[in-house]
């Protein structure tokens, strides 16, 4: 009851479904901010789905307020109800993870955080959630996530499967997720070429110097000619202001250097130490 949301500033009328926001214990001294929205269908029988945005280090409030949550925001920061919210069919739990992300926090300074630590903390947070909301403990349960959530989701799912806590775990989903660094990077060159990011000459160079008997290695190739060919491809992908998140869309705000972009880009080509100049401030034509 203390976590029940009774008003949402900017919203003239509260929606008919209930919502809670507060904190879950995610291991000793770690407190994860959660926002739980009841299903607009039948909360008692609809599944419970936890949603995790990626980064690593990015907030799941983006998932709620800009993606699949019931409350979205106009450009002026005023909220409105999203007619395509995933809580039309499920009870949705948005978790800010790990500690230090969004409004989640830790009682102590963490020197480092790892994939395994995040999985364990998320697992603890889920147990804390079901302790707080026992009425939902028999509902079917799913884990969903996006981007670096491609790491969070299966690692958390493995904890659930192996753990002693009794979840009615039915499945998991990953959207545009990190599943394999190798496959993501190998296919990126193909994706970029067949979408015209670079042309035949560079593609021929990449194939000639990075591929052998039909298998290409753009990931940790030691052939200097391959690395020489990858660099201009990398510059085309990252250095000219393309919107990496949505290829055909404009880059809002222009191509200025911003942290989130670097965070997401750090998932790609991490084996190389490319020093690509940060795009100059200014709008993209």
């Amino acid at each position, binding site marked *: 009851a203390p976590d029940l*949301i009774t008003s949402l500033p900017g919203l003239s009328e509260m929606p008919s479904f209930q919502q809670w*926001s*507060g904190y879950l214990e995610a291991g000793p001294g770690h407190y994860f*901010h959660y926002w739980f929205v009841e299903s607009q269908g039948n909360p008692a029988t609809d599944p419970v789905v936890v949603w995790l945005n990626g980064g*690593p*280090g*990015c907030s799941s*409030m983006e998932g709620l*307020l*800009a*993606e699949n949550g019931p409350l979205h925001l106009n*450009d*002026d*920061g005023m909220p409105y109800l*999203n*007619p*395509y919210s*995933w809580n*039309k*069919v499920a009870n949705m739990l948005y978790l800010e993870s790990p500690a230090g*992300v969004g*409004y989640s926090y830790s009682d102590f300074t963490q020197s480092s*955080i*790892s*994939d395994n630590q995040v999985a364990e903390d998320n697992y603890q947070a889920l147990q804390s959630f079901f302790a707080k909301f026992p009425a939902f403990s028999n509902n079917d349960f799913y884990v969903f996530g*996006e981007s670096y959530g*491609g790491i969070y989701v*299966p*690692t958390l*799912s*493995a904890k659930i*499967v192996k753990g002693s806590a009794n979840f009615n775990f*039915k*499945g*998991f*989903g*990953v*959207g*545009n997720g990190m*599943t*394999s660094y190798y*496959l*993501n990077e190998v*296919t990126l060159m193909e*994706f*970029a070429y067949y979408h015209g990011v670079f042309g035949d000459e560079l593609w021929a160079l990449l194939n000639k110097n990075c591929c052998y008997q039909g298998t290409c290695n753009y990931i940790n190739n030691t052939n200097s000619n391959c690395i020489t060919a990858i660099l201009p491809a990398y510059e085309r992908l990252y250095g000219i202001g393309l*919107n*990496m*998140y*949505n*290829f055909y869309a404009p880059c*809002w*705000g222009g191509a200025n250097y*911003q*942290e*989130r*972009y670097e*965070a997401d880009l750090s*998932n*790609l080509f991490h084996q190389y130490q490319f020093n690509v100049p940060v795009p100059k401030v200014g709008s993209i034509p």
Partner: protein
Amino acid sequence: GVPRCINATAMYIWLNRDDVRQALHIPSSLTNWELCSSQVRTHYKRIYMDMAPFYQTLLKHDLRALVYNGDVDMLCNFLGSEKFVESLNKPMLKSYQPWYYNNQIAGFFKEYEKITFLTVKGAGHMVPQYKPGQALKMFQCFLSNTTY
């Protein structure tokens, strides 16, 4: 913590309002909300480079999985996810075929035993943001285990 190319201004404005923080029961001692934490990212240790072993283990249990991709994203492109799901070597139940939303092709999907690979046509990295109707239909079909 402000994303490049993405307009997160509204979230920054709204989530950092005092009355919103109170409504969400956020302690006043906490600093402002940021979309992404540079501190977490800086201190983060990546362990797993390939999630296939996790999928192989999980799919031995009574679980279902969905791997979906907006097909105009370059950070985690759909070809990589498609090859990843293929690499799990699960028996294919339905070959590559379109799925529909409002009588329009909404993307393509392939169904394997316990796992489905699905694309959302014209969607970027954040699928439910760019194609909300299609995303909801996909989600509903997965949860109800009905065809896309």
